């Protein structure tokens, strides 16, 4: 397993040795663990900072095709989704600090960097708006509406949510992801570097 620290604590001067000893390790413990599933080879990036955990698990384009072929999407839309670099994504408020803080995320604020350019990740609202009834019927749109990760959401301690996030770049591409979230009244941020989209079937060995 590959493991490294992504960023230093962003807080300003902290008074008190006691606070430093008890709380600072939690606030400054941002790290990203990169690992691979031994059975299927799919990779996972696990970001941990204070009370938040974010997991991104690779999803093969064929897995995405299989999911959406069971619903009334056009062939073009299925390929669009399959080749959009999807990750199974989990966000969790661990509450491990004991402070009971609400965590709020807003995916419109997340930024990805790929091939020297910085941009937004692919959100479900513009995707849904771009499709005609021929591209996806109402039932199929429900799968996107509830299968893709909520654009905004608040998490109390122990809450977690699962969903798909998409990055709109080709299979096998590498990108960095700048994540932001609000923890109580504090806006926080971190970075997950070197995320790799799962390859398509023609690249599998």
């Amino acid at each position, binding site marked *: 397993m590959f493991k490294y620290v992504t960023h230093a604590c962003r807080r300003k001067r902290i008074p008190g040795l*006691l606070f430093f*000893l*008890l709380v600072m390790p939690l606030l400054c413990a941002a790290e990203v663990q990169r690992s691979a599933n031994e059975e299927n080879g799919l990779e996972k990036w696990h970001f941990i900072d204070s009370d938040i955990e974010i997991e991104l698990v690779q999803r093969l384009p064929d897995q995405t095709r299989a*999911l959406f072929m*069971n619903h009334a999407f056009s062939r073009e839309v299925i390929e669009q989704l399959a080749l959009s670099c999807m990750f*199974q994504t989990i966000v*969790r408020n*661990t*509450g*491990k*600090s*004991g402070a*009971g803080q609400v965590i709020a995320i807003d995916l419109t604020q997340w930024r990805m960097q790929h091939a020297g350019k910085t941009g937004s990740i692919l959100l479900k609202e513009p995707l849904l708006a771009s499709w005609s009834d021929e591209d996806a019927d*109402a*039932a199929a749109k*429900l*799968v996107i*509406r*509830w*299968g893709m*990760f*909520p654009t*905004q*959401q608040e*998490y*109390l*301690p*122990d*809450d*977690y*949510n*699962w*969903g798909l996030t998409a990055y709109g770049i080709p299979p096998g591409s590498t990108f960095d992801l700048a994540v932001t979230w609000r923890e109580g009244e504090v806006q926080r941020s971190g970075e997950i570097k070197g995320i790799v989209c799962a390859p398509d079937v023609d690249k599998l060995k």
Partner: protein
Amino acid sequence: MKIIINLFVWWSLAAAVFAGQTLTPIPGKVVAPDFALQDTNGKTHRLSDYRGRPVIINFWTTWCPPCREELPSMNRAWHLIREEGIAMLAINMGEDEDTIFIFSADYPTDFPILMDQTGEVIEQWPVKGLPTTYVIAPDGTIAYRAIGSREWDARELLDVIRQLKEQRQEPD
């Protein structure tokens, strides 16, 4: 030094409490939106018919991994509470009877599975992602919420729901 040790012990206990199976209390006596949905046997269930008893309402789909993860514990919980006057309804979002029937071979459930095929009911509720579960108090208000899966047969979790039976039946 003693103060530091005491604070560390307090912090450790607090962290342990937050790491358990928990439900989030919903403040403000929000009345749960009523619905009328058919279950997989064709019987219509109205939430208002369950007034006077706690109701666990779980929103899920067959293609949602954490939904599948918690279904076995929900079924075990159902067998623990069904004789205690607590109801459990799982509302499937967007799928038909055949899909649920095939799925139930691998994930058998004994409590009612309702079908919200058009997604109209889930849109009336403050659900952002799946699974989300609400616990409705006997007075029809939303008492607790859980985002993500839980081990529903955990005693500490069921005891919280059992305590709702003591509440008055009319909202303030």
